[in-house]
């Protein structure tokens, strides 16, 4: 496993060298290897398919434009990941400003759920009770995540879903490690406040055997 990771890193480094030598198509290797991971991160940070695609495209475009600054010993995957996280934060801040300007009401109703890509994900045991509970829980998770600040959401996603170290999070947030740690803790606290009531509601259902 370690060997394959090392060999991936080596082939990434070769592809980077080829792109820097003028072979634009060598960048395809890097895009195809890392786009799925960047997509996952972007979706978790933005929460919608449209912004996700924008973040993926922009992250790879910026990485290409800045490739001369990429250090050969670094990991391209981590690097493009960081660019994606930075852009996602900027994008979501921009979107909030635009939304505030338009004064659009929040759409958490049934119409919003129809367009929501989360609703497209298959539930493996779709009993009506479970479906109702998990749909509600998903909505609450989305709501709770949306109520975090951009820094808190980024810190939480990177730490808990992407397994990033505190230093990496601090680099994306442009803060020191101590501040980054506190941002993670604060995000967990807020998510707990928002979601714990729904977990308590789910527990009796479990006991009644309506789940799993």
């Amino acid at each position: 496993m370690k060997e394959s990771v090392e060999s991936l890193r080596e082939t990434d480094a070769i592809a980077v060298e080829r792109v820097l030598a003028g072979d634009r198509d060598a960048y395809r290797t890097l895009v195809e290897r890392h786009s799925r991971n960047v997509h996952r991160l972007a979706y978790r940070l933005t929460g919608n398919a449209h912004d996700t695609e924008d973040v993926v495209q922009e992250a790879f475009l910026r990485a290409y434009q800045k490739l001369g600054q990429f250090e050969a010993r670094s990991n391209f995957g981590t690097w493009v990941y960081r660019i994606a996280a930075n852009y996602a934060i900027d994008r979501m801040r921009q979107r909030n400003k635009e939304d505030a300007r338009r004064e659009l009401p929040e759409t958490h109703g049934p119409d919003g759920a129809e367009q929501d890509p989360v609703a497209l994900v298959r539930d493996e045991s779709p009993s009506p009770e479970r479906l109702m509970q998990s749909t509600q829980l998903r909505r609450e998770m989305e709501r709770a995540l949306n109520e975090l600040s951009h820094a808190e959401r980024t810190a939480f996603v990177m730490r808990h879903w992407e397994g990033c170290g505190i230093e990496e999070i601090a680099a994306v947030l442009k803060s020191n490690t101590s501040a980054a740690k506190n941002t993670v803790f604060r995000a967990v606290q807020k998510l707990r406040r928002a979601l714990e009531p729904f977990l308590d509601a789910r527990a009796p259902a479990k006991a009644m055997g309506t789940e799993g």
Partner: protein
Amino acid sequence: MTHPTEEQLIAYREGETPRREEIATHLKECGGCRSELERIGAVLRVLGEFPVPEPGEDYERRVWQRLAPKLAQKRARWWQTWLEPRRLATAGAVLVLVVVAFVAGRITKRVRTDTTAAGTQEQVRERILVVAVGEHLGKSEMVLVELANAEPQDAKQKHVNISAEQHRAGDLLEENRMYRQTALQQGDTGLASVLDELERVLVDVAHSPDEVTPAQLESIQKRIEAHGILFKVRVVGKELQQRQDDMKTAPAQGGQQARERNKT
């Protein structure tokens, strides 16, 4: 110790506290704090189930197809450019041509003492260039003809595979750049101009996707047609063949012909 705060318990769970042992000891003794830690864990476990939609099997290819047109060709660092294997091969071939031209020039000088050394060497170099470029144009013509005649096998076919032509165009592109520069250095601006136009078409083809839609294929074919490049390549190819034949009989006329074409 007193009961740890919620933030201290989160820090403990995150593995980011300097008081790890102290809190661990307390947790062994305190059921309330263990329960609190378990509730934090339960929220995080549920959040771990937050789904990310599957982007589809060919997601990587779609990302590349949207991205590729936005990427400008990078200006290579000069030393990297020359260390690329394909370029090294082409540069090697040109070096061989130059050495052959030099040696042939010296031999000719010895045999034909009535001709000036510079004039003879120029003729020999030109002859080699004419042969090499003629061959290059022949190969380019074949790729362009294949692309001009490519079409979907039936109306339902959504993609046409042009990867073979694409790779050959990529190889020819390197040679083309070398020959264009050499033609410019030799003052053969007519040939350089045709090679320049050919280069643009080769760049287009080399940077196309492996598989194109019938509409994309038609667009490539229109670009080939619009420049009349196939016709120009054929004309120059024939002219080079003629020059090659003339050189065999009357070597001195070669340079004169190039100058005449430049005027045209």
